[in-house]
């Protein structure tokens, strides 16, 4: 780029920047320069910035994206601090320390066992240090061990045994002395669907012959599930989009009154 081109681009950038600031101020003026007006304008600006990605990747989208990263990191930190750290850690190790924030738990007896997660937590933060990052492994090992132990039981009880148990349905349903055709068909589809779906996931035997037929039906059942999931996802996203447009046209511009 020549010096002249750089200067020309710099001027265009400055004008664009000023135009955005002016639009923001104008929008706030329409809301009467109130605090609420500022927040609504900010929300609208960020909504439009994200939607601008539909044109192409641009600086407004990048700004909104980076802001989202910072804001969401801080949001989860704050939520974790006030909902776990203060009542379950500081409040357990030294209860009087939380009196200004949570007086209800300030009088409970101290439990020094909670020094264990405090020490492990500090060890985890050691990863930020230039040396000795391996110290964080102790805390990581605790997290991984807890996750493995809890998941082993949870998945065994609810997802494996629970789902198998729920799939054991009567394949011939008699209601008031006669065959209930609809429930019988539904139960057959349910039982065979689960069975054939599992056959499809069984890779230790070649999918040929009767086994292959079961596997094929399994694929069809899985396709129905994916189709239903797809349909629901489309509806959920469209409904979110409608919500954003409602915000823009109603809360911000006030056109839907």
């Amino acid at each position, binding site marked *: 780029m020549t010096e002249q081109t*750089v200067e020309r681009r*710099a001027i265009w*950038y*400055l004008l664009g*920047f000023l135009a955005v600031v002016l639009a923001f101020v104008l929008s706030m003026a329409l809301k009467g320069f109130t605090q609420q007006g500022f927040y609504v304008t900010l*929300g*609208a600006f960020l909504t439009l910035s994200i*939607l601008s990605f539909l044109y192409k990747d641009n600086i407004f989208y990048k700004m909104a994206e*980076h802001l*989202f*990263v*910072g*804001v969401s*990191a801080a*949001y*989860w930190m*704050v*939520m974790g601090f006030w909902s776990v750290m203060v009542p379950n850690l500081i409040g357990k190790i030294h209860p009087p320390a939380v009196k200004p924030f949570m007086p209800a738990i300030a009088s409970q007896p101290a439990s020094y066992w909670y020094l264990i*997660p405090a020490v492990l*937590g*500090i060890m*985890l*933060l050691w990863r*930020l240090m230039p040396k000795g990052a*391996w110290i964080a*492994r102790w805390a*990581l090992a605790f997290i*991984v*061990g*807890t*996750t*493995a*132990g809890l998941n*082993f*039981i949870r*998945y065994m009880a609810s*997802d*494996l045994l629970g*789902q198998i148990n729920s799939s054991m349905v009567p394949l011939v349903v008699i209601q008031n002395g006669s065959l209930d055709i609809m429930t019988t068909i539904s139960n057959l*589809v*349910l*039982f065979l*669907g*689960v069975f054939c*779906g599992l056959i499809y996931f069984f890779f230790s035997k070649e999918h040929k012959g009767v086994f292959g037929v079961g596997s094929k039906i399994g694929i*069809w*059942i*899985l*396709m*129905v*599930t*994916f*189709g239903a999931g*797809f*349909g629901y996802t*489309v*509806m959920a*996203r469209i409904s979110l989009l409608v919500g*954003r447009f409602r*915000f823009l046209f109603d809360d911000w511009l006030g056109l839907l009154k």
Partner: protein
Amino acid sequence: MRRQIPLLITLIVGAVLIIAAFIPRAPFGRLGENFSLYFDIIAVFAFLLGGGNLVRIHGARLVRGVGMAVTEAKKGGGAWPLRFVIEFPFLAFGGLKDRRGRDWFFSLITLLGFFAMLAAGLLKLGNPSGWQGNVTAPEGMFQDFYDSMFNPLQATMYALLAFFVASASYRAFRAKSAEATILLVTAFIILLGRTPAGAYVTAWMPESLSFLTVPNLANWVMAIPNLAGQRAIIIGIALGVIAMSLRVIIGIERTYLGSDEK
């Protein structure tokens, strides 16, 4: 020591939690409960670690970028601060020649959002009930930031997917095979059945064939074949998770420990 102790911790913690489920008596039952609470606390430290890492990376990028931008402004000679202010949008949005310093302004945005949200939440700024109030109380600055920044950004990010889903559905909905046709038909029934149009197009059907109306068909698809497929997937996932958990607890799976370099 660097690998053995973490493996031992994983084994003890995992085994205690499994035993606690089968022998819910002292000391296992209590240990199981305590370990779950400890897990929550350490998970919050993991959030702090994430925040710290974010500040470290973006802080370094910001310092490097601002340094380069100032150097660039000084090249023009004369009153460089004035030049910096005038050329600010250009220097901030990709005007720097060196790629390493280009995105410094976006890092600044990340850090500003991070510290603003953090200060509003940790100090409970503007909270009507002061220090003792709930951090998410309405009218508090933290909740205002949530409503004006976090919520619009998150909702619009997900809403943006509606457009990409539309483009993906064009490709997916070309019935090239039996499987693709089943997917297409199911999605169509679900989409139509959950809208007033679904009831409208099959309203002419007689009472005896009411089970064939689109809303009823959609309900049946959701309750029976969809459920069957979901159960097959859930059972498959559960088997995988159980096997993986066992591998982790008995120390066969060690990838989470990383390498021995540091």
